[in-house]
């Protein structure tokens, strides 16, 4: 591996040695009529924040999004490839594609190239057949449907919060509040997560996106 002349300093954005990673917190929740997805906005190379306003919620189709975590290059390349494949499939079908189809395409790619890739993806969206759905495709290439899913390095800190605060049958507003609070807590504790909270609601009506800036984040204990 090529060694640079400044590699004793971890604060230096040494992109020849460290890959750009979305050390991240991502989350998706199903509700009656759609899904709420959320992510932080930090991309790091080592200890330097390469992009503090990243958009990790990537549209794959009109009502299907994916939340990306892991290697930025890998997830961008996979998302571009799946967007192409799904668009082609949708034209062939002359119909809106199923969320499960999108998730399957992600799984195919993530499993086939599992040794070469580092990608943890949450696929979420709305289709006319099954409504709002969340599928998680973690590192390794498994695919499973879950009512709530969290991912990324920051997710470790909020499993307890999510497990204790999730209730089936929450409304859209309750899901938004739940997601924003969970992401805020993770961003507070995980060094590789931070910036702003990006949220999106996907339903039959379409996609509504919002951003919660740093000073507007929900406040918890002042410890």
């Amino acid at each position, binding site marked *: 591996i090529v060694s640079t*002349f400044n590699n004793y300093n971890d604060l230096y954005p040494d*992109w020849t040695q460290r890959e*750009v990673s979305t050390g991240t917190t991502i989350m998706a929740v199903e509700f009656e009529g759609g899904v709420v997805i959320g992510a932080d906005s930090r991309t790091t190379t080592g200890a330097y924040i390469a*992009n503090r306003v990243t958009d990790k919620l990537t549209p794959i189709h009109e009502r299907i999004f994916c939340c990306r975590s892991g290697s930025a290059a890998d997830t961008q390349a996979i998302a571009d490839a799946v967007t192409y494949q799904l668009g082609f499939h949708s034209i062939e079908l002359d119909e809106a594609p199923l969320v499960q189809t999108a998730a399957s395409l992600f799984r195919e790619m993530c499993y086939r190239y599992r040794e070469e890739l580092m990608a943890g993806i949450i696929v979420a969206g709305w289709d006319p057949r099954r409504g709002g759905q969340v599928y998680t495709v973690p590192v390794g290439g498994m695919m499973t449907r879950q009512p709530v899913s969290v991912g990324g390095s920051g997710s470790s800190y909020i499993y307890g919060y999510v497990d204790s605060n999730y209730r089936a049958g929450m409304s859209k507003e309750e899901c938004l509040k739940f997601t924003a609070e969970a992401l805020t807590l993770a961003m507070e504790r995980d060094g590789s997560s931070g910036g702003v909270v990006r949220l999106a609601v996907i339903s039959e009506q379409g996609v509504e996106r919002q951003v919660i800036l740093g000073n507007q984040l929900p406040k918890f204990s002042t410890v």
Partner: protein
Amino acid sequence: MASVSVCQYRPGGFSFENCKRNALLEADINKLGFSSPAARKTGTTICGVVYKDGVVLGADTRATEGMVVADKNCSKIHYISPNIYCCGAGTAADTEMTTQIISSNLELHSLSTGRLPRVTTANRMLKQMLFRYQGYIGAALVLGGVDCNGPHLYSIYPHGSTDKLPYVTMGSGSLAAMAVFEDRYRPNMEEEEAKRLVRDAIAAGIFNDLGSGSNIDLCVITKGNVDYLRPHDMANKKGVRTGSYRYKHGTTGVLTKAVTPLNLEVVEESVQTMDTS
């Protein structure tokens, strides 16, 4: 589908066998006590900013080979198309060749579509090529230009990830330059203010990073016009010596002189005219 690209797609994917061979050779050389020659890197400061009428790209001009300056005035802002330019940091050869390949393919693509190329197209081509080589092509780029959809600025990393932002910095001096941007960037700046901001960001890299130095090059791209300002600012002019080491004739006294003429006879004479047309 006919391909208009210069790059031949090789079925079976890139062979990484040579990477293993290089690693083995490196180990062997190190065992003998030598070190393999370091690739020339542009330890660099490059940056770009989107302003009211377009984008301003900036770069320093130092190219280093280890701790020695190999080129004091190299050009790091590369031409991609008449409306798109790209600054390159990382391995000098990689940035040079990558930008040339994409520039060539983009020109063919532009002739095929009959349209001025878009910055997002150049971005796609660059990221797909760099991802294919899995980071072994050490090219970190700042891509900027103006097309039918307005001004655009991208940062592209060696592994193939890209970010679309209003201001970006790359290279060893990127932290210094980013500090200047985070302090003074505003959306929709005027051209003079944007040029001053980029100039100051590169200057911060030049004076605070050992890998960056010499002059500041700027490239201002607007709709229908490109100002390639090389150099925009000679921040490091070579100083003028105050004294002179020239000695007058006769300073050193000559004690003895012995002249031996050498007998050289012309054996063969041939003249070959060079085609200088």
